[in-house]
Structures are given as structure tokens and as C-alpha cells.
């Protein structure tokens, strides 16, 4: 073998070793990273919790195309499994994207309150759940979803499993609290008058503003008891006037930092074991 070939082989070997080393370090770091991402899916909610190869969704926006396009930006292309999907309530702007999600990814468990709806979005979702043989579980206050690493999601509302026929879907919306180290996040779905509905209101660091910033949610009283430092509004182009200027004013009065998916795009919080908390990351 010529000297040149020996050098080339050595160089290739070194490069391959470096690549493998970098890949192992990256996968290791990726497995330890926990992210909470409020996806910019227009007027609707879609929140992704990602910890290594484990993913949990709270709501799935209105459109499957938008949901999958945003998800594709945060998930490695080889990861085709979503471990848990939680539907806060059966409105189209919260479950509309799930049928497409189920057809493109393997979804292991689907959690919901038991409330159903006759809307097209819910009929399509039910059909997709049956076709994909997804495990369906009804949940209420007390259910806890523990992430394999640090962090858990605790269901605070509704207080019990709901009947299939619910006249008003928003009032049965799931409220979930995510805890990671010292960080507390509250996800309020579309729940109106939270201060009257929730049995106990404890302070949080980050609040997902209810009902895309509707004036019937996020009252001053609620904010005073919750004392959030940051608030995320999942909102898009709409004809309802979301987010309401009243809500924005209330948040500003309490010096809450407002982040909006319509103006800021996907809003990402990075949770690390070293800091033992979640911080905003672009």
C-alpha cells in the first residue's frame, strides 16, 4: 500500500471517529433535553413536550397540515412516535390536526375528558383513533403523566370524567400543570372564569393564557393569585378579536411578559437538569 493511501485511510478513520463521537454526544445531550414548545398553528392550541425520544402533545391545532409542518421542525426525522396526546376539549381549533397526526405518526395513547362533539373534526379524530388502534383513556383531576426523565404533568381540571354530551365544551376544558425542577407552567385550554372553576390556584412561572386571550378568561383576580412571570398566547388570524385588549392590559398591569405565537412564531422553553428549571429559548 502506498504512503498516500495509508494517510488517506488514516484521515478517513479519524473523520469517522470524530463523526461517531459527535453523534453520540449529540444524541446524549438530546436525550437529556426537555423542551416545551407552543407551536404556531394559527388560531388554535398545540403544545409539544419533548424529552429525547419521548413526546407529549397537549392539543393539536385546527389544521393537520400546519401541525405536522411545525412538528417536523422540532422532531428528528427518524422519530415517528408520539407517546401521549392530550385533547383538552373537543373543539376544532384544539383537535383538528390530530387526525393527520395519527395518520403520519404512531400515537400510543390518547387522553381526553370524556366529552365528545358532533363536529367534523371530532368525527374524523374518532375514526383515525379506531383505524390506528390507539389506546384511549379518559382523565380528570388527579391524573399524573410522568416524563421518563425529570418533569411531570398533573391534571388539575375537570374534577371528574365528563359525560359524552356536553352542552358547553370550553367549561370542561382540561387544565394541566407542568412541573420541571423549580419551574411551574399552567395550561388552561379554553377554560373561562378560571378563578371560579379551579379548586385551588397556586402560583406558576409561566401561564398558557386560556382561550387564545379571550376576555372571558384570565381575570385580574386569577392573575393576582397565579402571579405568573410570563404568559404565552396561542393565537392566529381570527374574527373573534383574540387576544382581547382587556386581557393584554391585565397582563401588562401585572408586569407579565407576554409572548404570542402569531407574532413570535413557535415559542420554545428549554428545561435543563443543571439549571433545574425552564428558560425561554428562541
Amino acid at each position: 500500500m502506498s504512503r498516500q493511501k495509508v494517510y488517506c485511510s488514516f484521515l478517513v478513520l479519524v473523520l469517522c471517529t470524530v463523526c461517531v463521537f459527535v453523534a453520540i454526544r449529540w444524541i446524549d445531550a438530546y436525550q437529556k433535553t426537555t423542551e416545551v414548545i407552543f407551536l404556531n398553528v394559527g388560531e388554535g392550541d398545540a403544545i409539544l413536550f419533548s424529552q429525547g425520544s419521548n413526546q407529549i402533545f397537549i392539543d393539536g391545532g385546527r389544521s393537520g397540515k400546519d401541525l405536522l409542518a411545525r412538528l417536523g421542525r422540532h422532531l428528528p426525522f427518524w422519530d415517528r412516535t408520539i407517546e401521549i396526546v392530550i385533547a383538552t376539549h373537543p373543539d376544532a381549533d384544539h383537535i383538528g390536526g390530530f387526525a393527520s397526526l395519527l395518520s403520519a405518526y404512531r400515537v400510543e395513547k390518547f387522553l381526553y375528558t370524556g366529552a365528545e362533539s358532533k363536529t367534523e373534526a371530532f368525527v374524523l379524530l374518532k375514526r383515525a383513533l379506531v383505524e390506528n388502534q390507539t389506546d384511549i383513556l379518559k382523565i380528570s383531576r388527579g391524573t399524573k403523566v410522568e416524563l421518563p426523565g425529570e418533569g411531570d404533568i398533573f391534571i388539575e381540571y375537570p374534577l371528574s370524567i365528563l359525560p359524552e354530551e356536553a352542552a358547553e365544551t370550553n367549561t370542561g376544558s382540561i387544565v394541566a400543570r407542568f412541573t420541571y425542577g423549580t419551574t411551574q407552567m399552567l395550561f388552561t385550554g379554553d377554560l373561562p372564569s378560571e378563578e371560579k372553576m379551579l379548586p385551588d390556584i397556586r402560583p406558576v412561572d409561566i401561564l398558557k393564557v386560556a382561550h387564545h386571550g379571550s376576555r372571558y378568561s384570565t381575570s385580574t383576580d386569577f392573575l393576582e393569585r397565579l402571579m405568573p412571570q410570563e404568559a404565552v398566547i396561542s393565537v392566529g388570524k381570527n374574527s373573534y378579536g383574540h387576544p382581547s385588549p382587556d386581557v393584554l392590559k391585565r397582563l401588562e398591569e401585572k408586569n407579565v411578559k407576554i409572548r404570542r405565537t402569531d407574532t413570535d412564531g413557535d415559542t420554545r422553553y428549554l428545561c435543563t437538569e443543571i439549571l433545574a428549571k425552564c428558560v425561554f429559548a428562541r
Partner: protein
Amino acid sequence: MSKDQVFLSACLGYIGGVFVGSFFVPPIWSLILGTAFFIALLIAFPYKKTFFFIIPSILFLSGVVLVAESVDHFREGTLYRGEVVGTFRVVSDPEEKSFFKQVIIQAQSCISGWCPREKILWQAPRTTDIVIGANIAFSCDVELPRNFDPEFDYRMFLAKDNIGYVCSKASQADVLSEDNQARFMRFFFLPKRAFENAVNKSLPQPEAGLAAGLIIGGSNRLPETLKQGFVIAGLSHIVAISGYNIALIAQGFVIIGIALGLWRRQALWFAVIGIILFIFLVGAPASAVRAGVMGVCAFMALFFGRVSRGINMLLFAGVVMLLFQPLLLRYDIGFQLSFLATLAIIISAPYIDQFIPREFFGRSFLEIALLTFSVELFVVPIIAYQFHIFSPFALIMNILLLPLVPYAMGVTFISVLGFFILPGLHILPASIAYGLLRIITYAVERLSTVPYAVQGVAFHPILLLLWYAFLLSVILLMRKYSTHKYVQTESVL
């Protein structure tokens, strides 16, 4: 006059007639007067050369009459409207829209007082479980398509596909038992479905939507913002089945054929069979068939390097398509772009090959860049006229990103094959495909955030005609110069 010239003038006669009839509806008396004048001319000058004009002139008149009749039929409200009840067949692959499922149906038999010959565009509920070929007991108070935007003739846009009516809410739509035709049509679309499913499961969105668009056509799988981004970048043509995509696929088949040990000519036939199979794979919609024919024309011309034969083939293909549907020339932007892009490739490829030096580093890149430039010269004016936009970055984006397209298509195809054989086998090719597709989506996403990436333009159609007349003159001059040079070189040697 050679046979080729007679053929060329006959084709141009018909296409010219369709063009004139599409834009200016001539009064019947002018046609009669024109015919009388022409007959008088033939009697007064009974020379052989005069008779050569008979066929093109007759074809010109037929073109005018055919297209004028079609325009009249759809535009002037000769269509009956009201409630229609009967048995209908689904003739298109249902397409998911934001708020409904778009289904095109054709009447089989009616029990109402009238039965439309034209197709109906039905906005079915998204929960409707229906597939192509299905027979349905259908009842609806159909309407004529309405033009919501004065700049866009929606009614004629649908008319080019022979769709005359819209049904926004059907009072009855029950799927009937499957007959042989329905079964055949459903099986016909199985490969397309399986392909889409495999792409969806092996690549993340929106790259999966782009990959499906590149291979089986259509931008409807892309999110609205990205779709708009492709328009801004002047790249929306890559996600429509066009002559360009077909020519690429044909080239791929030739490479495979030669690798399998076929001779050049055998490989060509292998490619033609491959294209036919490919058109079946995508469900053989009319647009794909048209693109297939044009793509094969371009590919044959490139393969044999004969400009005149390529142009004749393309014109003949155009004539056949316009015989079936004369409205395509004015109202089908896909037809216009595909035709012009193919023409640009056929005309420019031999010159590019002739004028750039034989061997140097980066020759293929320069070749692609020049070919893209010539295609842009033909298609940009029509895009600007039809969509009222001009993208200053379109040329550079096309030059930089188009070379990635054949590789992205090829690796996606291998990945899908891997998925079919054994899911998991697809991961390596899918990762390469993802990398290539991500470069395209990244560039498009970045460009769409650049200010002034797209400019609004509006101009008179006469300017468009002048531009194409200018291009034609340049081509003729180049042809003359090229022939002259060739003769001189021969004589010197």
C-alpha cells in the same frame, strides 16, 4: 416547401386559430368574409404555393370556431341550472381542503328534468368517506361557478376541465354498491395512495409534502405559508407535474436502462414505458398526461439533438391536446407553463451544448444554469401576467436549487421502495432525501422573509405578445447564424 414545413404550418395554423378565438371572439360575418376572400384568392392565383396555405387556413378557422363555441357555452350562461337528481360517478381523487373535501362528479343517469353533460365540483363534508370511481345517489341544487376576484376567471378555470357547476351543499349523497368500473378506478389509484402513505410515514412534514409534490405533483400538501414561499421564490413549478419533472424521470429511466445493459435506443423505449407507468402511478390526471407528452417531447429532442423534430413533436402534442380541450390555451396556466418551458428546453439545449466548451470543470452546472435561464425567459412573463407578480430572485433560486431536484426525487423514490420492502430499510435514503429537501424548504422559507422578494406588476397583454415575438426573432436569427457558421466552417475545412 418541405413536408416538415407543411406540418409545422398546419400545427401553427390550428394553435393560432385557438389563440385568436380565445382572446378575440370574431363575429361570424368576419369568418364568412375571410373564407370567401381566401377562396377568391385561390381562384385568382391558382399556384401550387397558394394551395399550401389551404390546410393551415382551414385549421386556423376550425381553431377559432371550436374555442369560440366552448367559451360561449361556459360564459354566456347557456348552461341550465337548478336541482339535479340522479346517479353520479366520482371522477377525481377527492382532495382535502381546509373546510371541505373537493370531489368532482359526472352524471351517469338523472331522474330530474335535466342532466348536466358537464362535471360538477362538489364541496363535500370532510367526513364524507368516498373514493374515486364510487357511484353515488346524488341530489343538489347546483350553481354556476362565481368569479369572486375580477382578476381571476374562476368559471373558465373550471371550464377547462369541463366543470360547469358547483354544489356547495348536497341534499343527498349516498354511496351505492361498487360496480366493475368503480373497482377498477379504485385499484388504479392504489399505487398513488400507497406511495403517498409511504412518503408520509418516512419523512417529516413539510418535506414529505414537497417530496410528494415533486414526484406525484401538487402543492396542496404544503402549508399555506410555504406554498406562498414557493410562489415568491419562483419555484412553484417544481411541485406541479410538468414537462420538467417528466424529463427528469425519463432521464432517470435511461440511466437505469443503460446500467441494466440496454442499448441507447432500447434505454429510450425503456424510459418511455417508465413514463407511462409513472403517469399511471400518479393516477393519470389530464394534467399529468399532458405533462407526460410534453416531457417525452423535450426528452426525445434532447436525446436526439434535433431541434426541428422536437418542435414539431411538441406542436403536434399541443394540437392534439387543444383538439380535446381548446380552452387550455388561455385558461390553463399549467398548460401554458409546461408548453413554454418545454419549448425553451428544446430550442436552447442544442445551442447551449454547441456554444460552451466541451470539457471543463463545472460544465454541467453552467449547462443547467443556462438552460434554467432560457426557461425563465419563456415562463417569467407569463407568470407575471397571470399572477401579477415578479420575483427578482426566481432566476438565482432556480439555478441554485433545481440541480437538487433530480437527486431529491431519486433518493425519495429509493426511500419509498425501502419502506415497501421492509420499514426501517428506508431510514438511510430518507435521511439523504430529507437533507436535500430541507435545503430547498430552508432557502424558500428564508427568501419569503426578505423584503421586496416579490414585486407586484401589471402590464398590457400586447407587451406579452411583443416579448414572445422578440424571443421568436432571436431564435430565428440564432438559427440562421448557427447554420451560416456551420456552412462557413465546412467550406474553410
